[in-house]
């Protein structure tokens, strides 16, 4: 196939190259250039305006001694791990349930998927409202007679991040479920027949046979979830705005606040560079294997 698709001459592929100019410009100028620009200025003492005044690693030293940054990292770790695991498990379980030839499959699927159509701002506002201790879940359960019931993540610094997690999961599980469902539908009918003949139990079949076969689908879902996690911002701003205190701060919010509110661009750039570095560390090996390799099927 490659011989037909990969003409060797410089000009034989002229149209393709011209057509790819927007992509090349985006990749080089915006993504690569923008990133390099940010990294460069993270080594300067830029305040409101970018200025070339080098301060070495000062911005990074301050970043890592900042309480708020450490809390942000910790929150992202809790949110990230929980949301990764729970979304995967829940997404797969839901897909498996829907795959059992049930009635009203479309209805259930639509119900689970629709939150994905809503923005994080809307999601945050809705859940802020539901978790409001005076009107929401806590008040209702108390009204039922369980007077000592307490569930107030919006005002409790220790559990506020789980309040955000509930909202984030609500918004994002649907898409993962749809991807899993598509993966399940791709499993050959013969596999099911074989496991039935061998008398392997249903749960065992899923865990030992189906899941390993769906590895690529899991990778897809994993990447989708994690790309969303590191960008976590809108939801926090809408739902808690980092509060109570600074107990639900996240790295992306640190970046924005220090760039614009504190008017300390250098500090904001240092924080975003750290975010970027962690993304690159996770992604480059994967991207290389997935797209950089020579072989495709």
């Amino acid at each position: 196939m490659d011989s037909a698709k990969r003409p060797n001459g410089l000009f034989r592929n002229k149209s393709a190259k011209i057509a790819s100019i927007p992509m090349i410009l985006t990749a080089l100028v915006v993504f690569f250039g923008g990133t390099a620009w940010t990294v460069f200025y993270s080594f300067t003492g830029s305040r409101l305006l970018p200025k070339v005044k080098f301060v070495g690693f000062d911005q990074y030293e301050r970043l890592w001694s900042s309480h708020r940054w450490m809390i942000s990292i910790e929150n992202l770790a809790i949110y990230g791990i929980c949301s990764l695991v729970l979304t995967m498990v829940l997404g797969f379980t839901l897909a498996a349930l829907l795959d059992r030839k049930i009635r009203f499959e479309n209805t259930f699927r639509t119900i689970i998927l629709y939150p994905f159509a809503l923005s994080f701002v809307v999601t945050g506002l809705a859940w802020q409202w539901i978790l409001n201790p005076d009107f929401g879940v806590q008040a209702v359960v108390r009204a039922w007679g369980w007077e000592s019931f307490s569930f107030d993540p919006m005002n409790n610094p220790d559990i506020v991040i789980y309040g955000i997690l509930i909202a984030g999961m609500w918004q994002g599980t649907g898409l993962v479920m749809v991807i899993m469902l598509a993966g399940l539908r791709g499993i050959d009918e013969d596999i099911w027949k074989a496991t039935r003949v061998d008398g392997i139990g249903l749960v065992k079949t899923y865990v030992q046979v189906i899941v390993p076969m769906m590895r690529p689908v899991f990778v897809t879902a994993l990447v989708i979830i994690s790309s969303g996690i590191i960008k976590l911002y809108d939801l926090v701003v809408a739902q808690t705005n980092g509060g109570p205190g600074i107990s639900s701060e996240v790295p992306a919010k640190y970046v924005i606040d220090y760039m614009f509110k504190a008017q300390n661009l250098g500090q904001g750039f240092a924080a975003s560079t750290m975010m970027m570095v962690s993304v690159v560390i996770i992604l480059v090996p994967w991207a290389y294997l997935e797209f950089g390799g020579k072989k495709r099927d």
Partner: protein
Amino acid sequence: MTDTSPLSAGTAAMTGPRGAKPKTRLSRRNIFLYGTLLLISVYYLLPLYVMVVTSLKGMPEIRMGNIFSPPVEVTFQPWVKAWSEACTGINCDGLSRGFGNSVRILIPSVALSITIASINGYALANWRFKGSEVFFTILIIGAFIPYQTMLYPIVILLREIGLMGSVWGLVLVHTVFGMPILTLLFRNYFTSMPEELFKAARVDGAGFWGIYFRIMLPMSLPIFVVAMILQVTGIWNDFLFGVIYTKPATYPMTVQLNNIVNSVQGVKEYNVNMAATLLTSLVPLVIYFVSGKLFVRGIAAGAVKG
């Protein structure tokens, strides 16, 4: 912001549900199955229900009752207020101003980003040239970079090309940030199309554009639907770019929503806030409820195939 990047994975074909034949009677298995699904549906439907119910209540009722009880006295006043009367500063025209802006931003952004991404995907799948995969890899890594990192360089970029503050500047930003995922989607889709079609057209002497318009385009309806749904919801729901790269005269609806929700005059009017929230979400919600099935089919075609 919607983050979707259906990536390449194993092969799949849509052949309908799998698993054991359904049993018609009320078995324990079925009770468990439907019970679980119903319970989960409650979790997913609850926020929507609460939003709708709250938006139909008057403020006194909200203060007294709990948020789950249906309205005793249904009022549409909050909806009217959210649409045309809520104030920000001295402008008291609610969300209505933002709706037109959102449409004006949405249509060119969706059209441009899908056009460019489909051509990218087509070139990457069928006309690979030296370095094309490198650019593509940069693009994909770009999809994971937090947008915040890019805000500032883009302000400078837009200033240099003179598009800062205009609708077209925002269209450009949406096109750029939609490109990684859409390109990936189209690339996966075109790669999965039969090789012979392409070869036969080459033999007939068709060129890059000829094949694209006459062969590829007519066959790629499902993936265009997916791309369109993703872009419409993503762009409609965008807040960050809308607030930074536009000005009050061109603010999209989400920015107006934020303005209304955060402009508290006296007491917080939860009912108006909820009505405003629902109004803002109406377009993407309708799209999902109408085209949910197509979306799922498209995801299977674009994301899982590869």
